[in-house]
């Protein structure tokens, strides 16, 4: 959806909250739109602030993640070892169509910014054979990590895929995408980490 549609959704959501029984999930949805999609808050509301603080709490859990995962090529990757690089962590699956649509964008950016320190880590919880076959067919060159136990997914509180997290050179989480990103949206995220 484009920005106008997302804004309309936020307004509809805010409207539906009026007079309705208190529902934390609706506040969290609206908070996600405000926090991640840069929608203007439709009104000032303490509950909305608390919902945004809850999202930030989830981000802090992602920030402290210390996963160490093996890639398809056998190399082991961890966030700690990549300090000094800009790291885009993407959770995906071969069976997820939106994920598959954003992988080419990630590949393009990886090729463009790889020399400038961008590392793309695509994490899948699927079986090695399934992932390896897909990657070989598509010819992607970024590291694809296997997370069979879903530990990294749990660390990052991934409740849906695709989901992306961007860490800057100091290891700080600077941007998060809660769903499929277009190339321009990915570029906006990278800008937050100083890549453009």
């Amino acid at each position, binding site marked *: 959806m484009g920005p106008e549609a997302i804004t309309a959704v936020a307004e509809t959501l805010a409207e539906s909250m009026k007079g309705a*029984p208190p529902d934390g999930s609706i506040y969290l949805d609206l908070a996600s739109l405000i926090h991640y999609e840069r929608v203007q808050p439709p009104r000032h509301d303490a509950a909305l602030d608390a919902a945004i603080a809850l999202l930030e709490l989830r981000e802090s*859990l992602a920030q402290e993640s210390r996963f160490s995962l093996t890639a398809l090529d056998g190399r082991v990757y961890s966030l700690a070892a990549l300090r000094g690089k800009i790291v885009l962590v993407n959770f995906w699956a071969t069976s997820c169509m939106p994920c598959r649509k954003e992988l080419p964008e990630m590949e393009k950016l990886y090729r463009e910014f790889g020399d400038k320190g961008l590392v793309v880590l695509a994490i899948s919880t699927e079986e090695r054979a399934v992932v390896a076959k897909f990657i070989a067919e598509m010819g992607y060159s970024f590291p694809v990590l296997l997370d069979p136990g879903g530990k990294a997914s749990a660390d990052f509180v991934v409740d849906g895929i695709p989901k992306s997290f961007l860490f800057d050179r*100091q290891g700080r989480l600077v941007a998060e995408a809660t769903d499929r990103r277009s190339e321009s949206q990915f570029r906006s995220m990278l800008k937050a980490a100083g890549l453009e």
Partner: protein
Amino acid sequence: MGSKWRAKSPTEFSFVGTSSGWDRDLLEWLCPPGPLWLVHHFPNLLANIPADTMSTTAHLSVVGLYVPEFGFVEVVRQMRFPLWTALVWIGMPLCAAGPGTVQQAVQRFEAMCSKVPAPLGSQFRTTAAKVLEARHPELAQKLMPAGPAAGKFPPAPREEPASHLPKQPYISSSDASVKPLRMLIGLSSSSIWRPRCVRCLLAPQSSTWPGICAARFPKGIWGRRRLRL
């Protein structure tokens, strides 16, 4: 262009304006994370001092460490550059070593949540506790609301006992929003909105509060999603 520090609270600073140079990067690196924050009590430190003179002439009014348990601990006043640099390098590992980021996020969340009346505040706290449960059980325990309803979400309106419902078909505001949601699903194949749409549509069949239902959907329709908030 000059820059200004604006203190939001004794423990939190935000950077307003733009600047360049090592000083800003260093300070930004230091201040946000960690249990110990290097704190300046100087309202316009960088605004008044050009970055290129920072290395030789700058004075910092007060520099100290913020320790959550003890508050602000003043370290030194009127400090010149070499000592400032030394303190920064001492502070870096201290900041990086601590478990503070999540704790700070929890503190901030609690502060925000305290302004939210029940039952919403309780719902948020329960959700936060569930998020923290695996890796920070002690924090999760602290957040979980007390009382007989602890950890439980209020039922969705449609699950109220029949005796409480009016005779005519009961349509709540959230029910009324389902129709546009259903339409939106077709438009939002890649949207953040999708889980919410699906969740709303699932709700009539769900025996739990929609926000905590977990479901896996057929491959290739929504992507493989595990809904949980």
